[in-house]
């Protein structure tokens, strides 16, 4: 089974979270900038005079598609890395994913999600691989 993790957390925690995920072998991911609020409600910014309230605060949303068996470890990693303990740390959602298709090769399902040196290969005793920078995009 394939799952999608959607984690919404503080922008300033993005690098820490990314590093922690690479460390456990999560390689594929994408990030969008979002604005929103939960319990925190908003913050006061300083304007020309006094303050004004901004209720939708910037956060990042990190999306990862991965195999069922890696979900718990990944959630735990994100939660630890993104946490500050203050209100407004964000939320993690997990959804089922029906299928995955890699556009370049046509691979489907689990095959479309594997990378050299990723969390599955590490579990099978593979070596950690640095993410390669490609000359072209």
């Amino acid at each position: 089974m394939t799952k999608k993790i959607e984690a919404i957390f503080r922008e300033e925690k993005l690098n820490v979270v990314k590093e922690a995920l690479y460390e456990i072998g999560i390689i594929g991911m994408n990030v969008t900038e979002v604005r929103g609020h939960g319990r925190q409600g908003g913050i006061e910014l300083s304007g020309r005079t006094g303050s004004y309230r901004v209720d939708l605060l910037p956060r990042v949303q990190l999306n990862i598609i991965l195999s069922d068996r890696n979900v718990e470890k990944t959630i735990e990693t994100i939660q630890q890395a993104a946490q500050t303990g203050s209100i407004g740390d964000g939320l993690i959602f997990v959804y089922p994913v029906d299928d995955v298709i890699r556009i370049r090769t046509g691979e489907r399902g689990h095959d479309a999600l594997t990378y050299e040196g990723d969390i599955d290969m590490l579990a099978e005793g593979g070596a950690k691989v640095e993410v390669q920078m490609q000359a072209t995009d």
Partner: protein
Amino acid sequence: MNEINTGDTAWVLIATALVMMMTPALAFFYGGMVRKKNLLSTINLSFITVGLISLQWVLIGYTLAFGTSQGGLIGGLNFFGLSNVGAEPNADYAATIPHLAFSAYQMMFAIITPALITGAFVERVRFKAFLVFTVLWATFVYDPVAHWVWGVGGILRSIGALDFAGGTVVHITAGFSALAFAMVLGKRKWFGQAVMEPSNIPLTVLGAGLLWMGWFGFNGGSALAANGLAVNALVTTNTAAAAAAVVWMFLSWKDNKPSVLGIVTGAVVGLVAITPAAGFVTPLSAIVIGGLAAPVSYYAIKLRQRWGLDESLDVWACHGMGGTWGALATGLFATKLVNPAGADGLFYGNPSQFLIQALAVVVAIAFAFAVTFVLAKLIHRWLGLRVTENEEEVGLDISEHGERAYA
């Protein structure tokens, strides 16, 4: 026959360029404070004013302001289309530079004044209505008041009112006209409910910086000569801006954190307040004038917010109230030690100067407010001052200009 002084002429030409730059600078200053869907529209309100009023001034504006006085109320038509305005000096206004240089320098003041009012229009004004208003306002408000204060025989000049570079003519008229216009125009949709955050404060800082620089031409150039008075005006101008910026920083710090938007607003308010006084007061007085201008405008903004009035970019608080304070302060701090052609103020033993200043302020406020209110009402009935609700939600960049600031 008056001799042309090349130094004076060179300085006034440079000052003309500096004051011209202030209107595009104002475009940035205002542009940064609106939401990004209205950024181009806001910038354009200032920019197109350079075009509109340049033409109005050449055709009719200059002669209405500086033509031979008709009973002290308005200039005659002897300079219509800049006829009889040439390379020879006009001793009434500037005896050592070509008359045409004086009229060009004054043109830049006539341009920036209606551009200042546009801070009250942003994010909802119908462009067509704005164009009509601006030309009529320049003709029926700016040109008469410029004549009263600066024209030989003008009613306020005749009673001895001092306005070195336009505290009354420029800032009071613009500020109180913005107030009247905002009352007729009404508030933006969602005003007071949704946050309307400035989209690009660095743009505002850029604008404020260029305004500060341009103001050396605005006030320093108003000496109309490259002399000690011009230097005094330049130094008092810089000093007042500095004092107001620092005081505003502490005011906003007291309420939250030292806001950059607040600091640059303070600088502009200090520049406004010193404008009528720059060539009549000492640098030490400039510290007091600038320093007190900051709380005057700061609390005027808070008052305007309590009224629930959407005078969107606080033209009234910054220019109207800053200009009023500056005009009154001229009646307190002016001294003939700085400018023998001026007068002594209250603190130099001449309380009547303060009363003269106060009278000029009241007349300018009442006239600008009333005429603008009527003009706005008439244009509203004729063309409609506002875009539709849907056009407002989409933003004026797309709905009025078919363009956007960022792709």
